[in-house]
């Protein structure tokens, strides 16, 4: 057996082995299955909730948004055309990968979300709290993976019509969905908004939490190492206020999830989204640990109704 590898370290923590040079990670964007730096060359510092510098991450520009939308559009035909069963299998594979990197996520979520109150009290965030969130995130992903070949039976169905017709309605994916991920819940929140978008056959351009992006970038690595086709999820880090208007105004984006935008800022984005009549989903921030139900599964689908003549 090789020697046990040191746990992931951050700039703040001392290296596990003083004789080794620390391998610092470059946090980049995730576009079209690759991890490019921002087209603009910019980066910005990310701090832990306790105020320590964790890393510099890529700061996406509007052109990265454009590239991400192009990648998502290119991936849409393949992903939406895959069978629902196949999508479920691929999403389940993502959960397997996520589960395998649980320790890394527990560390990152802990750093990102230790509350200022806990800092003030001198309390170290309990690993249990972070672990609970990571566990919930894995379970949430599995939950939606299971729904991918079942929601159509719930959301769709046959319609009783007065005539010699067999009429049925079925949900179809809306298209490219712009997702503004929750700002506070760095992993569970992200998973809870992204999984239903994918389960219903859409492709996504995600803008991660601005101040807590590290779990999201690591999650992109999980996506890259599962069987998800390139471009189905594209993840950008940077200023939400800078990027959101470009995403909302982009006429090749079909829907917008405003979960990560405070209520006061939503109206301006909704107005921009009206340019090409995007489907906009702007729910109240829920308790992410609570049972999500299936409301998000119906958020980004278009109902197609077919009338088929019968009888004669």
């Amino acid at each position, binding site marked *: 057996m090789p020697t046990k590898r040191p746990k992931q370290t951050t700039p703040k923590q001392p290296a596990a082995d003083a004789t080794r040079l620390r391998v610092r990670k470059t946090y980049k964007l995730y576009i079209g299955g690759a991890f490019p730096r921002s087209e603009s060359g910019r980066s910005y510092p990310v701090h832990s909730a306790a105020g320590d510098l964790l890393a510099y991450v890529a700061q996406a520009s509007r052109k990265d*948004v*454009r590239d991400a*939308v192009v990648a998502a*559009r290119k991936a849409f035909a393949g992903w939406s055309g895959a069978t629902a069963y196949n999508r479920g299998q691929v999403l389940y594979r993502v959960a397997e990968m996520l589960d395998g990197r649980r320790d890394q996520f527990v560390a990152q979520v802990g750093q990102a979300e230790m509350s200022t109150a806990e800092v003030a009290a001198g309390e170290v965030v309990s690993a249990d709290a972070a672990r609970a969130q990571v566990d919930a995130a894995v379970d949430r992903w599995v939950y939606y993976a299971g729904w991918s070949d079942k929601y159509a039976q719930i959301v769709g169905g046959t319609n009783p019509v007065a005539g010699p017709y067999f009429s049925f309605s079925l949900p179809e994916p809306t298209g490219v969905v712009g997702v503004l991920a929750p700002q506070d819940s760095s992993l569970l929140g992200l998973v809870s908004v992204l999984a239903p978008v994918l389960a219903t056959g859409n492709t996504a351009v995600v803008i991660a939490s601005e101040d807590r992006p590290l779990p999201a970038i690591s999650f992109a690595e999980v996506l890259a190492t599962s069987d998800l086709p390139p471009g189905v999820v594209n993840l950008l880090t940077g200023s939400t206020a800078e990027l959101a208007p*470009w995403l909302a*105004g*982009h*006429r*090749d984006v079909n829907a917008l999830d405003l979960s990560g935008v405070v209520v006061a800022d939503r109206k301006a984005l909704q107005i*921009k989204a009206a*340019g090409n009549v995007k489907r906009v989903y702007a729910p109240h921030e829920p308790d992410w640990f609570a049972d999500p139900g299936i409301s998000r599964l119906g958020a980004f689908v278009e109902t197609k109704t077919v009338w088929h003549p019968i009888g004669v």
Partner: protein
Amino acid sequence: MSTLARPDLRDVSRDDTSLRRFLHGLPGVDQVGAEGRAAGLATRSIKTTSKAWAIDTAIAMIDLTTLEGADTPGKVRSLCAKAARPDSSDASVPSVAAVCVYPDLVATAVLALRGTSVGVASVATAFPSGRASLDTKLHDVRDAVAAGATEIDMVIDRGAFLAGHYVQVFDEIVATKAACGAAHLKVILETGELATLDNARRASWLALLAGGDFIKTSTGKVSPAATPPVALVMLEAVRDYHAMTGERRGVKLAGGIRASKEAVRYLVMVNEVAGQAWLDPALFRFGASSLLNDLLLQRHKLASGSYDGPDYVTVD
């Protein structure tokens, strides 16, 4: 450069020996230097009003092309409609320079473009391989011209060129030029098959000496097609030819140019290498099909401030 010192060009094509001596006496191309120069020119930043100008100029320089075995008269007619008015919702978009089709579809295109400024170009001479007898090739050209083509895109015999039979290639171009009559002749060098930039330079000069009105990079059927270093070498050739004779000949880049950004970079190169006079559809063309849609999307972006997608342009 040393070619400038060379005297009378009429003597050059007198016989095989003198033609060979001239072509092999051309200065060799420094490939690393050419790639470096092309990459350097690609770093120029073209923004706002310059970009708007470049986009409209590039649109006006397009030979909108469809060269598929599956081309139908209906497809050619819709291509012609798009050529005359690229954006149905915006009359300020200029028409493209020409449409480019196979000879048997020239009549359809001519009919569809009557009353517009758009020319009809036709590939001929056993395009794309050029592997046919001279008689067959010339017949192909006469057919296209008789059907109303105003521009003929011929392919050179790459096999003869690579074997060193320069006079044969030269004579074929001369004969094709004669068969064209009033139609403009574009000579396709197919640089992707010529292997070296030295050969690209020799083929360019050969085509210019033989009377080609344009030199064109590629058929679009071979990869690599138009690349920045090849474009650089060909633009240098027309520049030097102008310096020697006072006559301006054109360059057409074809194959693989799909993004507005690439097109704008080539315009920068045209301006810097050949000169401003070449920023004119009469002297510089893009052979392309999907490039037009990308230019239109960029135009929408400049006008509206938000990005568009493929839903807002025609499906070709």
